């Protein structure tokens, strides 16, 4: 008997829980050469900005142990070209599309939302909060619950009521639950976590940072334990909110960790760079694992590791591990 893999991102049903991660699937067309995009739970776009962006200088990439650093700098076509060329291509094919947006001010985010609200083919909007707030000396929105909430509230107020707004959070905070709560209170219908923690690599031959931008976002298997922890903490604190678990997923086993911790959707980023079919493989492996463990429905596994056991009483996610 097969497993019912359907899941809900807020009130929107997805045929399966495996999506691409923002910024890791190009415009969609690149992956379409490898497989039928309808087989994705959803395609998440790169973060769209108002103006076209050339991004950061190269090198933009450095390999690290079980991970990589990237500093792409939101290179993209800008909202006009996106609405003209990229979104219609996806919409015409009926591909479930979560549009990610990025901005430098609250006004920019809400302007983006305004442009998207009537665009056909927007399954949900994911708000990339890992952008520097130019009105606060470049402090990243996601690192400050107040700033994050302001962005979410402005996007939520503008977006059509039936398009879920997903807040994408960063792990580089003292208290991810506090930021999550601020976003939910501001109207986020779901949370996505984690965006890349900030890392760095030094080129010891050139005696300078490997990336032209200096620092970069860390992704890949190395960060899976951080993603599992963030999902766990937020699901424990705000159990009703749908969570998109992202970070280091390369197998169905990894995806199941995030699901048991509380995610109902799983995003796959860096693994796509290694294996263009990663989403399909992970979805299949996940289904096989669930089946082997006797689950009939994916939904039954969501957050299951929180079920109280004798051992669970010892768990206190706020306390230090030391």
């Amino acid at each position, binding site marked *: 008997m097969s497993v019912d893999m359907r899941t809900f991102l807020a009130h929107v049903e997805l045929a399966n829980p495996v999506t691409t991660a923002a910024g890791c699937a190009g415009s969609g067309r690149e992956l379409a050469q*490898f497989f039928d995009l309808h087989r994705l739970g959803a395609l998440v776009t790169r973060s769209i900005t108002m*103006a076209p*962006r050339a991004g950061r*200088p*190269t090198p933009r*990439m450095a390999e690290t142990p079980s991970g990589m650093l990237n500093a792409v700098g*939101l290179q993209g076509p800008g909202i006009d070209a996106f609405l003209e060329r990229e979104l219609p291509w996806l919409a015409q094919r009926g591909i479930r599309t979560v549009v990610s947006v990025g901005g*430098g001010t609250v006004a920019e985010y809400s302007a983006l939302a305004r442009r998207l609200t009537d665009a056909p083919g927007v399954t949900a909007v994911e708000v990339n909060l890992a952008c520097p707030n130019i009105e606060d000396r470049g402090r990243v929105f996601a690192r400050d619950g107040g700033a994050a909430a302001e962005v979410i509230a402005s996007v939520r107020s503008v977006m059509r009521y039936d398009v879920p707004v997903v807040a994408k959070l960063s792990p580089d905070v003292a208290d991810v639950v506090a930021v999550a709560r601020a976003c939910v209170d501001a109207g986020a219908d779901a949370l996505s976590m984690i965006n890349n923690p900030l890392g760095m690599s030094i080129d010891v031959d050139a005696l300078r940072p490997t990336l032209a931008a200096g620092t970069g976002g860390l992704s890949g298997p190395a960060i899976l334990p951080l993603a599992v922890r963030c999902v766990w903490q937020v699901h424990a604190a705000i159990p009703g909110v749908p969570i998109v678990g992202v970070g280091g997923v390369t197998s169905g086993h990894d995806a199941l960790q995030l699901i048991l911790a509380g995610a109902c959707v799983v995003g796959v980023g860096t693994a796509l760079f290694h*294996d*263009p079919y990663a989403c399909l493989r992970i979805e299949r492996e996940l289904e096989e694992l669930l089946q082997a463990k006797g689950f009939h429905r994916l939904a039954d596994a969501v957050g299951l590791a929180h079920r109280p056991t004798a051992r669970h009483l010892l768990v206190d996610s706020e306390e230090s591990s030391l």
Partner: protein
Amino acid sequence: MQVTGTVLTTRRVDAYHALTVVAPGVAERFRPGHFVSVAVGGPRTSMVTRRALSIHDVKPDYGGTVELVFTAKGPGTSWLAERRARDTLDLVGPLGRPFPLPRDPASCVLVGAEYGAAALFPLADALMERGCRIDFALGAASADRVFGAMRARRMAETTTLTTEDGSLGLRGSVTDVLPSVIADTRADVIYACGPMETLRAVTAVAIEFDIPVQVAVEESMACGIGVCMTCVLPVIGDDGVTRMVRACVEGPVFRGERVRFEDVGTIPFDALGAPGGGARNVG
């Protein structure tokens, strides 16, 4: 496409390693200039990114094989250098935009520096099939790093070799000899493969002689399939606008004069979406 190929043979060619891999699907679709990306490190490796390698040769044996030629530079290529016959290798390819071929027979100079020479041989075959004249100019730091000199001599009208240390052919770089090769062969077009510095210099010579040049560039690549946006360089489009384009899908082969070599590693101020436009301060 992604295939799990089997290593057929491994050999050393002077300073290089060569692997022949059974990969029918890749061999079948191959055109000169294509590359593959190879998973390195085996199960549970800590190396998460693939390595891009040009295809040096394809053969019909065993349904189709591809040959890769590479230097053991860092941990990934060192791992590759340790592969043995019958090991499996996970390849994605063929990838990239191949070399465009002239419609009519033309006189073509093929310029290869270091392992870049490897990618020129299937191109030479294709050009010769179209009745083109072929001349090679191959260069490297030292004799053991000049790839394919013998084969070039067998195929081409002329083959000019250069080494930095003078251990083979003329002392100097391949671009030093290029003007005289162009003059001697009355070249109609240049193809070049090698380090960016060589491509820049070759392009300068081609512009001087006012002949078209096709260069295969190299940029650090995380995905090779156009989704990660890490491999970009500034290239001037047909509309005169500079864009940060992906070496893996818009390239690796570009018209040399379109590549802003001086600005590689920067975002030129006049590139589409460069800081200074409305989005300067975002992300």
